[in-house]
């Protein structure tokens, strides 16, 4: 029997409730004893705060509230704490926390992972947590030895006393637990770091190499039904007819449930649910969107870019500068919607039992989910338990609440645990894309070849509005639509950069590096165009404009030196450059590219230099930069979500190709030594990749690539 679940509010309404949970930057941890997490804290555990537990066997367990999606937080969070604790790294293990405000990401004020913020957010709080524990252990040892704590020191999970007497932390558990928790313990000077700043192997082995690692899609709850959904092909499309009898006739199908986002078929296994969903053959009332296509997207973005008037940057007198310029150039750039295409298709297992809600899911936003799902299930946040499993890729997609909301609604309606699984085709078409965007540029150079004017009008949808927890400010500028462009590093005296909002319809969301993902392509390409207009070398042209951006300048210069920029390359190979700052880190990339006669570009090598301030795990940093380059390469070469007749045209990896091992260039990452505070690292490697490649393509062919993915037809026989 069909069981429609009516809700009074739209999904957007659900998301707005989450705003109530944003409490702003949380205070450094108060003196508090840890709440029960995975392992309950008993009297045999020293747990002066939510993150650290030391047991009599001298082992240290660190509780991590961040979601692990390959970016290495399950290793980095313990490193932050273990350093100040002076723990023996070999005795340190990590466990995933439950959802609890104790594990709020200090950068967000909620328990969530994203924005390359985990290290930046936890840098002081986690170091403080470790230092607290260390001081309490020292105080306990001092009392025991009847000496002053200043005569003691710590090393590798031991207190070292006069005469070299060694007391393991484990022997001090009970005594340390009785000590007062210091509010402001002394933190190490970075020059004394023993654990941080050293390449360190991940703690999540061997599970990931022996098949025991559990991702969301591996969850199993006895009695669960598996759900596959027929989702609206376009937001606000409504189901107008379906063949329930045919769906029910599929062996294994148990229920058909309609919820706001579509119709679910619940069965005793994935295949039956999938077949049942296909047999259901839902026909959709597409409303005004029946003829929606990518051409409509482009024309709406064009219009918004042309009339953009929410001013983000207003400097000098661009009109006069244009009028008096020796040379003006203009160009129009465009990028499409992009899917995240995580390797693990979206999924969520939910069990609503009365007023209790339990989830098993890979999610980046446990904190917001708790509030949203309490609302959805008509429960209280305290009764929403989230078991955070490993994420088979996140990239921002798993920050969205859609799949957790749907699983929860389905479980509530079905009265049993429900495992919602997206087929790859469902995942591809499910929206929450990186926004499409169009930019109209004008630039001017004077007779000395200096850049005198830059004007840009950006047309794109608003992620702030789509997020459900942010609002476009009074001035109308969606900061994410212009980040990387409005805050570019070049000292150009006359500028006007404005945003024009367009909402063609597809749901947009955060995608790895967000607005920087398209805006670095835009500005780094146009700066290259201005260099060409000034008949200047692209590197020299940029360096001359980076007088107010020393960290951009430094990474760019070093990358050029390391890549051998300006030195001879193999026949047909050229260099293209780009530099971008995002999420607190500065990355320069120099791509060595050749273009074949059939127009296919080949990226042979990428030389990257990153200034991310002080480092926690340089091994992770190198992997993240390389991984981000790979992600950017997929987008530059292939990525495109397009629409025809109201539907997404792409479905699987044959028509939404991604970079394979055969595409991957050699990547050389150099981390700039720095004593600055840490910047983020998950995302900053992506923005410079596309422009570095397309700038190289210009050098090789004389063809300026102004839209992505790269059109190889235009490059045929041009190299």
């Amino acid at each position: 029997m069909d069981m429609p679940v009516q809700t009074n509010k739209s999904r957007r309404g659900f998301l707005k409730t989450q705003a109530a949970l944003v409490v702003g930057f949380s205070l450094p941890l108060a003196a508090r004893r840890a709440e029960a997490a995975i392992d309950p804290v008993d009297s045999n555990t020293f747990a002066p705060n939510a993150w650290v537990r030391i047991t009599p066997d001298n082992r240290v367990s660190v509780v991590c509230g961040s979601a692990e999606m390959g970016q290495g937080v399950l290793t980095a969070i313990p490193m932050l704490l273990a350093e100040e604790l002076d723990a023996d790294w070999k005795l340190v293990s990590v466990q995933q926390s439950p959802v609890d405000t104790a594990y709020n990401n200090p950068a967000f004020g909620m328990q969530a992972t994203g924005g390359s913020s985990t290290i930046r957010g936890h840098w002081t709080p986690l170091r403080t947590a470790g230092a607290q524990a260390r001081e309490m252990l020292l105080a306990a040892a001092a009392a025991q030895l009847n000496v002053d704590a200043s005569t003691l020191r710590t090393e590798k999970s031991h207190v070292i006393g006069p005469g070299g007497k060694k007391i393991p932390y484990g022997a001090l558990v009970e005594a340390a637990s009785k000590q007062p928790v210091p509010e402001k313990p002394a933190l190490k000077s970075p020059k004394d770091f023993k654990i941080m700043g050293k390449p360190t192997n991940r703690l999540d082995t061997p599970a990931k190499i022996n098949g025991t690692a559990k991702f969301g899609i591996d969850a199993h709850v006895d009695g669960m039904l598996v759900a596959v959904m027929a989702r609206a092909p376009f937001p606000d499309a409504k189901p107008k007819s379906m063949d329930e009898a045919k769906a029910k006739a599929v062996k294994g199908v148990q229920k058909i449930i309609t919820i706001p986002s579509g119709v679910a078929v619940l069965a005793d296994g994935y295949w039956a649910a999938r077949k049942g969903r296909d047999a259901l053959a839902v026909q959709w009332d597409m409303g005004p969107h029946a003829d929606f296509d990518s051409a409509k997207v482009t024309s709406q973005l064009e219009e918004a870019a042309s009339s953009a008037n929410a001013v983000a940057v207003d400097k000098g007198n661009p009109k006069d500068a244009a009028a008096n310029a020796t040379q003006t150039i203009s160009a129009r750039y465009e990028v499409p919607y992009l899917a995240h295409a995580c390797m693990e298709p979206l999924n969520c297992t939910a069990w609503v039992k009365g007023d209790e809600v339990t989830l098993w899911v890979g999610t980046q936003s446990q904190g917001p989910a708790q509030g949203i799902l309490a609302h959805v299930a008509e429960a209280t946040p305290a009764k929403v338990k989230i078991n955070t499993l490993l994420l088979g890729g996140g990239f921002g997609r798993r920050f969205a609440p859609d799949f957790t909301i749907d699983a929860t609604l389905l479980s509530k309606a079905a009265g049993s645990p429900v495992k919602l699984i997206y087929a790859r085709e469902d995942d591809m078409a499910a929206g929450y894309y990186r926004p499409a965007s169009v930019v109209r540029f004008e630039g001017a150079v004077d007779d000395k070849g200096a850049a005198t004017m830059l004007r840009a009008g950006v047309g794109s949808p608003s992620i702030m509005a789509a997020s459900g927890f942010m609002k476009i400010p009074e001035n109308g500028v969606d900061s994410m639509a212009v980040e990387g462009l409005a805050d570019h590093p070049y000292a150009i005296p006359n500028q006007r950069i404005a945003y024009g909002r367009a909402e063609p319809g597809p749901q947009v969301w955060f995608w790895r590096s967000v607005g920087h993902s398209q805006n670095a392509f835009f500005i780094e390409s146009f700066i290259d165009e201005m260099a060409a207009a000034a008949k200047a070398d692209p590197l020299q042209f940029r360096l001359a404009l980076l007088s107010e951006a020393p960290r951009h300048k430094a990474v760019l210069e070093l990358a050029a030196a390391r890549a051998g920029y300006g030195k001879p390359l193999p026949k047909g190979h050229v260099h293209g450059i780009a530099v971008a700052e995002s999420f607190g880190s500065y990355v320069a990339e120099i791509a060595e590219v050749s273009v074949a006669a059939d127009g296919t570009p080949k990226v042979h090598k990428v030389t990257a230099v990153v200034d991310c301030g002080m480092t926690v795990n340089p091994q992770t940093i190198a992997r993240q930069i390389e991984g981000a380059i790979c992600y950017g390469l997929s987008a530059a070469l292939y990525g495109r979500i397009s629409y025809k007749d109201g539907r997404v045209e792409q479905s699987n990896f044959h028509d939404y190709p991604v970079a394979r091992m055969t595409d991957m260039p050699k990547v050389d990452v150099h981390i700039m030594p720095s004593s600055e505070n840490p910047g983020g690292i998950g995302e900053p490697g992506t923005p410079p990749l596309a422009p570095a490649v397309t700038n190289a393509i210009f050098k090789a062919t004389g063809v300026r690539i102004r839209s992505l993915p790269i059109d190889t037809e235009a490059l045929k026989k041009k190299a």
Partner: protein
Amino acid sequence: MLAHPFDTILAISRRELLIAGSACAAAATADAQSAPAPRPADAPPPPASTITLQVNGQSHRLTLDNRTSLLDALREHLHLTGTKKGCDHGQCGACTVLLDGRRVNSCLTLAVMHDGAQLTTIEGLGTPARLHPLQAAFIAHDGYQCGYCTPGQICSAVGMLNELRQGIPSHVSTDLQARPQLTNDELRERMSGNICRCGAYSNIAEAISEVAGAEVRS
């Protein structure tokens, strides 16, 4: 050297397998759009078969709907979730297992086709006390990030090194008669069926190279 006439069939590259897979995917999508012929509600249930699968040295007797993929048989029926589902259309390689020593995309084959077959999944490669050399190499070279593609990468690499040992050429082999060497191009071509969205490709390649090199030396 090609050992058996049937080996010529296996000499098709991964790329050709993918193109075949994409044709299946296109067909499948088309099926979903058009209404398939209706099956009367009182028709007999779809045929099922009872088969025996040897998985990681253990014998399993399963009665399955004939249309169950080997991947779903492993994950849903045997609860061996180490083998992953990424695309269900042979595009990504996350579901790679070893079937009688050969690597296959388990999503592209039906369980009932393999009655009596010997299967090795990631759970059966090595033991906690003695990791398979490739597992150890993946750890040593940090050959993963999120870890979702990893079981498929490792199983695929095991199968790939077997193919190399058997002298099976690839799409990039310049001389089909010569014993193939694991050059950079060969390694990448032979592993191109395994997608890694985290971009750990260079570390994966280093891990495989190390084991291959050790094999050459031993």
